[in-house]
């Protein structure tokens, strides 16, 4: 048939072209394979000291409480942002299961509400949750936009909620008394990342690229402030962008030692790869949004130049947690799983101590001061952690490994 | 091309139709004559599943009821009825239309007098429809000018030309299929309506006035062309003949000074053509000037006061039917073509 003929013609033509290009390719290979010269060899962290007296969901096993008390997870269960939500609510689920198993006298229920991570959809589920009087504590919402949209509803109902992943600094400036953040905000990570790049990696010329997300912009502003004159250039990319050639040529022209990409791995990975393919020799640093195994899968060998900063503890190093998580959900803990677990643990500990209504549980969280698995939890008056830790990570043999606390 | 698009329609042999009476003479200068209405005849392509009324009988009934007295009045209430052939109403001056390198119309000049029926004929590809489209604003002439009552309408927007008084029908029927017959006609009437969008939004008094008169005039117009009973039928459900009539009613609704009919007899059998001729005469009798583009020589010769003949984009003759019939160039142009070539 005619179409067969065209397939043949076209394929032959393509073959010829690939061939010629390939020959040239062969003759000039070399040069590009050598790894980044400026890479500083930071040793990987192999162990982490879990606080000895970290509060665990099981408690002392003697807790008594009325039945029907409920904790809720509100956040994405479906939609493009679902994975982050699943990581968190699995953590919550694990904590509640452990608690209920250890405390036959206090069975806490768990409910999930789906927002799809969409601020416009979130009011319905949140309103539903605050209207259910049994729900006395909430883990969520995961994203900053939806948290901003619904914080007022929680405040009005006096229902405490701990977010395991929303990092926008503005969230704690609303005067809400019910909002608590189980991790450092973007303003904490920015300076830490700046120090990491200039002090530990010893890079003096940094190119900052941000995406169009609230997170990316906020973090980029923070790190630019900390880096000051070390910034040799900035550029902006778009969520969903796949071709970064314009940005890459600007960077190659500017010859920086390091590129800080303030965004998520979905764009960060192809970006890093296109940088390396164009002969960029410096390091690539990304925040927690980039720190994901997917980054390595997507960027391949190019990811060897990558470092990450994250206000998250290397959960995989906490053996007990990752084993329990693995056996419960048949998957390794993901980003923010441990924050979800810790948040739920704090609420459960409150219930075990007899704080079984909304206002008491809120006060419990407000005055909480104890170690969790991942960090020490104590909040200031607006719901920010009093002290938060940022870890540095690097890529080693196709795995992301921690290089220790950086700020 | 000009065959009815819907081939499923059944044709009923006209000979079987008992309602086809003798064709009476039209009575000019007396407004709408009862006889004309009664003899427009039944729809030539009745279809069982659409309740096509029997117009002739209907008209009889109506005549008894005395309804038709108001027809012309309602159809064009504000117009002066002037059927005397008068001054030039349309002048086509040296119009040339070129498509790329192709000259479709070459320096054509003719005019239409007020109150006459002018036929525009020519063999296939002679440029009839091009001339028509150049007049009605579908194409902009490459050079030359088109005047309506002394004012140039060349290059004006089509809806402005329509409002200036030049209405047309389509060779291949182009009704608004999802609208009823009445609504189709009211769209035509809307060309003269002045209700603004805000006016319609709040239902201004003018809106009510216009809406009411629109229904009355619309029904009257449908009655005039003989399909009043199908007023509330979707136009795409109408039988072919009724659709053609509806096209004419819709064009008349714009209250034109000149009505241009583009092959209105396409797809008609001889008897239907006779009825159409009567309708055209009646329209003229009501004070409209008519431009008729037609293939069918018998129809053209039978109804036109004057005929313009085109060939290869040029005018080759212009005169009364008798003159044109005798013109040697016309004869040679049509040589070999049967006289009654039913498009």
């Amino acid at each position, binding site marked *: 048939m005619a179409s067969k003929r065209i397939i043949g013609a076209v394929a032959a033509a393509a073959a010829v072209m690939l061939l010629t290009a390939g020959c040239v390719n062969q003759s000039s290979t070399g040069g590009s394979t050598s790894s980044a010269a400026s890479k500083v060899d930071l040793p990987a962290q192999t162990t982490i000291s879990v606080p000895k007296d970290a509060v665990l969901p099981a408690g002392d096993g003697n807790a008594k409480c009325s039945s029907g008390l409920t904790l809720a997870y509100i956040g994405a269960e479906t*939609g493009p942002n679902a994975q982050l939500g699943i990581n968190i609510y699995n953590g919550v689920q694990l904590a509640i299961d452990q608690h209920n198993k250890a405390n036959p006298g206090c069975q806490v229920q768990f*409910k999930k509400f789906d927002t*799809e991570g*969409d*601020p*416009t959809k979130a*009011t*319905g*589920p949140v*309103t*539903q949750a605050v209207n259910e009087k049994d729900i006395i504590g909430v883990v969520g919402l995961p994203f*900053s*936009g939806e948290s*901003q*949209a*619904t914080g*007022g509803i929680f405040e*009005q109902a006096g229902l405490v909620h701990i977010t395991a992943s929303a990092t926008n600094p503005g969230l704690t400036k609303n005067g809400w008394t019910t909002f608590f953040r189980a991790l450092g905000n973007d303003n904490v990570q920015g300076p830490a990342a700046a120090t990491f790049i200039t002090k530990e990696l010893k890079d003096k010329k940094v190119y900052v690229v941000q995406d*169009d997300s*609230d*997170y990316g*912009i906020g973090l980029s502003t923070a790190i630019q402030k900390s880096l000051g004159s070390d910034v040799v250039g900035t550029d902006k990319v778009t969520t969903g962008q796949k071709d970064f050639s314009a940005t890459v040529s600007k960077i190659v022209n500017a010859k920086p030692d390091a590129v800080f990409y303030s965004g998520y791995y979905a764009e960060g990975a192809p970006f890093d790869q296109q940088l390396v393919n164009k002969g960029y020799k410096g390091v690539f640093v990304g925040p927690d949004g980039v720190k994901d195994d997917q980054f390595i899968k997507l960027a391949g060998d190019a990811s060897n130049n990558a470092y990450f900063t994250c206000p998250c503890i290397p959960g995989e190093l906490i053996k007990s947690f990752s084993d329990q998580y693995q056996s419960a959900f048949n998957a390794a803990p993901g980003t923010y799983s441990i924050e979800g677990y810790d948040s739920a643990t704090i609420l459960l500990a409150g219930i075990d101590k007899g704080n079984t209504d909304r206002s008491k549980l809120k006060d419990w969280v407000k005055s909480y001061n104890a170690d969790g698995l991942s960090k020490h939890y104590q909040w200031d008056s607006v719901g920010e952690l009093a002290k938060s830790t940022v870890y540095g990570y690097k890529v080693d043999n196709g795995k992301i490994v921690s290089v220790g606390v950086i700020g | 091309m000009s065959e009815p698009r819907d081939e499923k329609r059944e044709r009923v042999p006209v000979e079987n139709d008992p309602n086809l009476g003798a064709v009476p003479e039209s009575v000019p200068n007396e407004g709408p004559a009862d006889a004309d209405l009664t003899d427009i005849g039944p729809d030539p392509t*009745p*279809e*069982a599943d659409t*309740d096509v009324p029997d117009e002739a009988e*209907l008209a009889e*009934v109506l005549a008894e*009821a005395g309804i038709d007295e108001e027809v012309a009045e309602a159809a064009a209430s504000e117009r002066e009825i002037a059927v005397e052939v008068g001054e030039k109403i349309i002048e086509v001056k040296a119009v040339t239309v070129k498509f790329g390198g192709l000259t479709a119309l070459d320096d054509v000049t003719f005019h239409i007098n007020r109150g006459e029926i002018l036929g525009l004929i020519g063999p296939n590809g002679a440029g009839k429809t091009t001339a028509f489209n150049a007049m009605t604003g579908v194409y902009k002439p490459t050079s030359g000018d088109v005047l309506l009552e002394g004012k140039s309408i060349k290059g004006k*927007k089509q*809806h402005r030309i329509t409002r200036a008084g030049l209405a047309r029908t389509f060779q291949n029927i*182009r*009704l*608004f299929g*999802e*609208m*009823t017959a009445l*609504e189709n006609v*009211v*769209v*035509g009437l*809307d060309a003269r309506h002045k*209700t603004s*969008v805000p006016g*319609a*939004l709040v*239902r201004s008094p003018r809106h009510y006035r*216009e*809406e*009411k008169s629109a*229904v*009355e005039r*619309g*029904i009257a117009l449908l009655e005039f062309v003989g399909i009043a009973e199908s*007023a*509330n*039928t*979707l136009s795409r459900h109408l039988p072919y003949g009724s659709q053609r009539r509806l096209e004419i009613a*819709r*064009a008349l609704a714009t209250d034109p000074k000149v009505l241009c009919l583009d092959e209105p007899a396409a797809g008609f059998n001889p008897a239907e053509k006779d009825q159409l001729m009567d309708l055209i005469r009646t329209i003229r009798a009501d004070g409209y000037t008519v431009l008729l583009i037609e293939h069918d020589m018998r129809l053209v010769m039978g109804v036109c006061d004057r005929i313009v003949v085109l060939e290869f984009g040029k005018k080759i003759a212009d005169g009364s039917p008798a003159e044109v019939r005798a013109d040697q160039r016309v004869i040679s142009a049509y040589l070999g073509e049967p006289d009654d070539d039913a498009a």
Partner: protein
Amino acid sequence: MSEQTPVRTTRAVQLTESREALGGRKQFLGGWRRRWNRMARWQQWLFLIIVLAAVYYLPVANPWLITTEPGNDFPIACFQMAVYALVAVGLNVVVGFAGLLDLGYIAFFAIGSYTAAFFTSPDSSLIHIPYLWTLPLALGIAMLFGVALGLPTLRLRGDYLAIVTLGFGEIIRILATIIPAARGQVGFKEVGHPPGTASDGQPIFSVSNGVPWYWLAVTVIIVILLLVGNLERSRVGRAWIAIREDEDAAEIMGVPTFKFKLWAFAIGAGVGGLSGALFAGQVGFVNNQKFDVATSMLFVAAVVLGGSGNKVGAILGGAIVAYIPLRFTAIADYKYLIFGIILIVLMIFRPQGLVAAKAHLLTYSRLALDKVSEFRAARVASEQEKAAAAEAAKGVPNE
């Protein structure tokens, strides 16, 4: 086929008329429509009042099986359905009436949301006005944008319009990200709400209280429906349908097509803006998320599903599109797939949508119906008379 009996009864006339009332279609809900058309005015009003009362009562009743709880608060779900219905009513003017495929309708929704945010949120440094004033303002501003977009593009052919509006939707979304004043993902919080405080000191129109918002939205829908209905039964509606059916023929019949397309576009845009402002008020927060092409597609699906060119259908379609993912939260992931398939299947098997009805285009349609019935009755009488005469004529020689 052609050998039908010449004598028609009154019954036959009635049948014809009822078929005409349906626009000649056999259809789902067709029986209702026929019954509706045969009702007297007062019966229609009574019926409408009962339906309206039921509609207003819906979120309070929170009926079992229909409710979206426990996944979503039912009054808020009702409000979201109402907003989608309003969106569908507006888009129906553009797509259903004028036949212009607008794939960037979300842009006008976004413009409305941002208008409400700009003029009421404490995050905005513009002057602040009461929330209720932002509703007409959003309508007006969105209309201006509609005109600004329509002026250059409505002269293009229909399919170009689709792609240009799609681009416009993207541009508005992108600008909401790029322009610092629009605050990107940070967005605007505490968007205003109508005044009024409940007994417990909370505002009546609080973010979590869906019922008053729903009532407000339904009231707005009713007002818009009345106005759109007025347009429909006027030369404006006729011009739109004529443009949809055959744009060239409409122009030649004296319809200023460009002007009326622009009006359709502007009115659609205005209603889109209005619904955006309503939505922003209830959610209380506006940022650049969710003003994407996919949501625009849902809007089109709502119109097509309900029945393009039909207000009741649009409302139903909008409500269904909003309702299904809220009620069946488990299928939230599947919704675009489901609605995508619905678009194809409907276009192939039921292009007229769930509620198929011809638009009413005449203010005095009853007058027209009466006149035609008059004709018919007169003819039936004459036919019967004739038949009787024929019988008589036949009868005499036989005897």
